[in-house]
């Protein structure tokens, strides 16, 4: 199951950096302000959505817009099992339930939508979000007569640590999948699905399982996010914006490397917050321009830009060395 030999290059430095970041995150509540913790929680939420989106859509090339549906299922699980009148199940159990229900839905949807490719798959998955939203509304309105649900309050630090745990788990999963046989299968599907099938990749299974894994993390994040929202109805839970955000963040960051989407999500979430607070009346306008500019001028995302800069610096340094040799 392991092909580390062929992809591991310079394991030490990235590993050390991740460790330092992890320690910084784990100890954040001890040195950061409470709002720092809240802000990082929300950034972690965006990272989880983005990375789990990339987990499936990155290598396979299927653009899923179902993120809001899986995230919303998690949020709703929280609203049902963790009402403000008293938790029906322990928080962590609900986190797992939310993830499992999401991945079950993903299994079903994945099995149904196998024949769809490209834009059709994207539209179908987006349709799923709206369909669940409308059916949820109809259900709450005509069957349960529910006027919104309150979710119990959870301590900010607890929310933060659970979100962090989901994040770490997700990063580990992503890392392992990328380095495993499974990841190779996914990439070959993304490169050429037909060829992949003909060299023995069980295309259907690989796609559906990955879709379900990515949905698990989205759902789990939804459960914990709902305890921040405190109030849930279908419009709150299934906000279509959460379908687009991960895509934008991933492309903004660049999908080639494992840390691209993470950087994209961090900067995007930070930028959004800055604009909403510093330029509240111009948020949409500026955000839109930044988006368009990013797509125009950062075709490989921020990671591409960083790599380009890095290459430039190296060439410049090499150039300097070469000049001393009086060669070129």
């Amino acid at each position, binding site marked *: 199951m392991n092909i580390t030999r062929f992809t591991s290059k310079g394991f030490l430095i990235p590993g050390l950096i991740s460790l330092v970041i992890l320690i910084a995150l784990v100890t954040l509540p001890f040195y950061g302000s409470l709002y720092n913790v809240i802000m990082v929680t929300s950034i972690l939420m965006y990272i989880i959505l983005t990375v789990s989106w990339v987990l499936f859509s990155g290598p396979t090339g299927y653009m899923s817009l179902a993120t809001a549906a899986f995230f919303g299922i998690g949020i709703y699980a929280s609203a049902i099992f963790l009402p403000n009148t008293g938790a029906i199940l322990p928080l962590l159990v609900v986190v797992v339930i939310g993830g499992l229900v999401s991945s079950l839905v993903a299994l079903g949807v994945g099995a149904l939508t196998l024949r769809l490719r490209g834009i059709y798959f994207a539209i*179908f998955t987006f349709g799923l979000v709206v369909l669940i939203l409308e059916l949820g509304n109809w259900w709450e309105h005509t069957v349960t007569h529910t006027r919104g649900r309150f979710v119990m309050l959870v301590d900010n630090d607890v929310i933060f640590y659970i979100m962090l745990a989901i994040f770490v788990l997700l990063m580990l999963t992503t890392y392992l999948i990328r380095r495993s046989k499974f990841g190779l299968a996914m990439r070959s599907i993304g490169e050429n699905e037909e060829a992949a099938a003909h060299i023995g990749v069980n295309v259907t299974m690989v796609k559906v399982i990955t879709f379900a894994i990515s949905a698990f993390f989205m759902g789990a994040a939804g459960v914990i996010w709902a305890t921040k929202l405190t109030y849930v109805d279908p419009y709150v839970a299934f906000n279509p914006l959460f379908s687009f955000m991960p895509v934008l963040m991933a492309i903004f960051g660049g999908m080639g490397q494992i840390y691209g989407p993470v950087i994209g999500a961090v900067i995007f979430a930070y930028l959004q917050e800055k604009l909403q607070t510093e330029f509240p009346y111009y948020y949409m*306008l500026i955000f839109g321009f930044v988006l368009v500019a990013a*797509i125009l001028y950062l075709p490989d995302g921020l990671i591409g830009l960083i790599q380009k800069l890095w290459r430039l610096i190296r060439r410049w340094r090499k150039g300097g060395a070469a000049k001393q040799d009086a060669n070129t």
Partner: protein
Amino acid sequence: MPESIVTIMDVAIGGLLLGGIYALIAMGLSLQYGVARVLNISHGEFIMLGAFSTFTLYTVVGINPLICLAIVGPIAFIIGFLLQRTLFTQLRTSAPNPGAFEASSLLATFGLMYVIQGIALQIWGADYRAYTYLNFGVDLGGAIFSANKLVILGFAIGIGVAFYIFLARTHMGKGIRSAAQDPTTASLMGVNINRVLALCFGFGAAMAGLAGVLYSMRIPLNPAMGLQYTLIAIIIIVLGGLGSIPGAFIGGLILGIIGEIVTYIDPSLSLAAYYFIFMLLLLVRPKGIFGK
């Protein structure tokens, strides 16, 4: 007995009229996606711009909304034309493959949606605005419909037919059709592909603008109203087959009639029904009704 006939008339003609609106919204997007390969998420924003411009022209300057068609259409066309010539051409030339272009243009139009909404917020503010025009009943054999709806259907058919003839008969139309089928071959055959794509995008934007002008007679306006029309238009063009203008037209009519039937049964399920039918169709016939 006559009452049930009136009800059937109401549902059928009502569906047709609603379908006319939908068709008008969808044809422009179908053109933009079918030829220029841009799935324009900001399509609804052009509808919003058209509607707001008409509101201002009508209530402030006092220009008849029907005359606004002649003002808003060309302006929307120019905006669309320039967008394709600059933004999307840039994206197209720098994209490594058509798939990458589709993805990047989709996201660019998402950004464009923010930009246009942001501009509209600055110009018109966030308040609801509305006016009505030709809002009186017309009796069609017992079933009564508001006149502005009939006008919208008339224009939808008119624009659809005119455009169809334009595509079928004129030189430029042939260029567009060949570009829709295969841009590379078309450019080899001497079609100025960049201009054709820009024309298509411009026509698409103009149709959205016109839809906005007409639809503003019926609905309240606010800068955030566009996205819901984009979503409906996307359903329709998938129903009709991506890139097929007649498909978009008939898809719009079908969706309108389905909408009215479901509304007759249980209005709260109408949107759910749209999406359900749409997703079902995608599964059964992924290329749409008229797709090849």
